[in-house]
């Protein structure tokens, strides 16, 4: 009789490791978006630049926002003012970085559980 036994161990540890590393990946990406938005924004008084922050809403849920009412107009422009796109570009640049960090988090979690 041929018989195959598959015994999977450590799934809970793997799940925990993945969650921890993914949470860090999301947090780091949110912080990176803040830094990049601050670095790219057109500055007159510095109020918009200084108002950017990343706020944690959940374990893997972060929000990056400004704290002044005119930030959207600086990013997208107005009828008589050109757009600087600082936030759009920060978001654009964060997307592939997050993908890379998520992939890396999965690999590192697997390696950690294997050890």
């Amino acid at each position, binding site marked *: 009789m041929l018989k195959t036994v598959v015994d999977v161990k450590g799934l809970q540890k793997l799940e925990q490791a993945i969650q921890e590393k993914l949470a860090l990946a999301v947090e780091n990406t949110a912080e990176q978006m803040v830094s990049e938005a601050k670095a790219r924004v057109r500055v007159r008084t510095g109020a918009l630049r200084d108002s950017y922050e990343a706020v944690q809403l959940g374990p893997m849920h972060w929000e990056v926002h400004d704290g002044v009412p005119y930030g959207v107009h600086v990013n997208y422009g*107005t*009828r008589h003012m050109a*757009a600087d796109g600082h936030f759009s570009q920060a978001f654009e640049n964060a997307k592939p970085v997050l993908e890379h960090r998520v992939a890396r988090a999965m690999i590192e979690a697997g390696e950690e559980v294997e050890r």
Partner: protein
Amino acid sequence: MNEIEVVKEFAYETLRADATLAGLLTRPRPGTETDVLNLYRDRALTNATYPLVIVRQLTASDVNALPVTARIQTELMLLVEAYGDQPNTLLLRPVADRLDSVLIGAGGDVDGLHVHGFYRERPTFGEEVDGAKTYYRLGGEYRTTVSRAE
């Protein structure tokens, strides 16, 4: 080469060449009998009439091969929106619809670059309050890639 101005100009000229859009955007210049096409790059004139359209660049990212001096292509996103001074978007809808029809798939060779067809990444809507007046905007974020023309 800097692709941003080339692509913005390409989109602008593509829109400018469309007779239907010209019909929607051509108005007499204030105080004169001269007609003007209310299509702008980056920002509108302060005395512009409505509706008007503004073509802007929002993002740009290079895709490089190894070594990184070998650029494969550049991805660009334009924000193309119609602005109106009416208290609703009724007059803007046909303009925004036409922008979408003209831009989607528009591409070609210009200044040694090949502009691959535009596609819309997301529709946009917003309002701009200026004193007691609210201006509405309607349009979309349009993405394209450009590479060196063969």
